[in-house]
């Protein structure tokens, strides 16, 4: 291990790290938005839209991100729809994540016990009150573990961006290995930066998951 090499490469890695984080979190924000909207559409069984959402969720849950990115980045320009690599990464991650988040939120909404609805109605709550003060809080708590798992999964998936020549951590490492053949140092830094990126999320996620479990109501 040559620490001078590590020192020399550090700025490049930091730049790549920032880009990875930026696109990763934009994608995750998108996926949360898409997920919430899709879950509501599925939960309330809005005609036509719920069929569209179902097809979307199944399509994106059953294909790899790499294939989705290739299709959007190399395929769509042939139809005249050109997107920059960065936008493509964020949109791809958002669409993939959206389908996972939709499943998590939907199963959270579905897991709230029927007795909760019945009790709320027996107490004379209106439909809207029932949803916002009884179902929704419990559904959010119930979907926390799945959402945390999705967050980590999506942040990990950002490593695929290098395939559409986005200068992320993976691309930088691969590029430097190809140029200078300092494989050990490059891979070491790659691992360190992914640990910096994901370990806090993983630890925080576990804490939030534990807290959410205590807030469970009923049984």
């Amino acid at each position, binding site marked *: 291990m040559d620490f001078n090499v590590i020192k020399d490469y550090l700025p490049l890695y930091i730049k790549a790290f920032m880009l990875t984080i930026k696109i990763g979190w934009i994608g995750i924000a998108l996926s949360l938005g898409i997920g919430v909207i899709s879950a509501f559409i599925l939960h309330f069984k809005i005609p036509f839209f719920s069929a569209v959402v179902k097809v979307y969720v*199944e*399509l994106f*849950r*059953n*294909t*790899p991100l*790499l*294939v*989705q990115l*290739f*299709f959007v980045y*190399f*395929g*769509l*320009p*042939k*139809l005249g729809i050109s997107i920059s690599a960065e936008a493509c990464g964020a949109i791809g991650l958002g669409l993939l994540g959206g389908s996972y988040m939709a499943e998590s939120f939907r199963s959270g909404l579905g897991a709230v016990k029927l007795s909760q609805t019945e009790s709320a109605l027996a107490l004379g709550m209106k439909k809207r009150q029932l949803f916002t003060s009884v179902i929704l809080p419990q559904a959010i708590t119930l979907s926390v573990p799945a959402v945390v798992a999705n967050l*980590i999964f999506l942040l*990990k*998936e*950002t*490593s*695929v961006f*290098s*395939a559409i020549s986005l200068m992320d951590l*993976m691309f930088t*490492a*691969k590029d430097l*290995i190809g140029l200078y053949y300092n*494989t*050990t140092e490059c*891979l070491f830094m*790659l*691992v360190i930066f*992914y*640990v910096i990126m*994901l*370990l806090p*999320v*993983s630890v925080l996620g576990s804490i939030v998951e534990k807290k959410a479990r205590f807030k469970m109501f009923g049984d």
Partner: protein
Amino acid sequence: MGFEVLLKGNNMLRLLGGLGVALYISLISVAISIFLGIILGALMTLKNPVINVFSRVYLEIVRIMPQMVLLFIVYFGATKVLGLNLSAEVSAVIVFSFWGTAEMSDLVRGALSGIDTIQYESSAALGMNTAQTYFHVIIPQIIRRLIPLSINLITRMIKTTSLVMMIGIVEVLKVGQQIIEANRKSSPNAAFGVFATIFLLYFLACYPISLLSKYLEKKWEN
């Protein structure tokens, strides 16, 4: 639109062959993962402190390291550091089994610790010995919980194998790129048709398996 490229020569067959490579790698990895995962998962329920620490660290590594990084470490790192010259296919199987074993062991541990003590006590009350308890009561219940989840692992494994093109294995995406390159002049729009087809092929490979897993999960729900 670029779909006509696939009808030329044996292009479609080549694409399917590429998908076959991906499926082949994922099935081998799944088989290894299930086997090792069951052993590790069973060991994890023993509450041995050494195994606990080891499995916690192992699971955390798998949880936060992208599979792509692991692939690079094994494929490029092993050659440089250990002097081992692993082929891309072997590295891929090692990495995906490493990842799958972690996932599987966690599922097995969950399924095992999810069985109520009541089950053991009732079997003892009925006069069953330990072997009978496991064979007739515990293992059937665990299998019902595990099968849908392990089928789910297969679809995730198939999706993850798309990464192997990054270490130079000629699988479906790489074949797709080759077809596009070869027909650049005659059909400039091939990229759309080829990648749309690959998208659909992956969907067709994974969707039935997802459906099966969902169906079994519903069917065996208590």
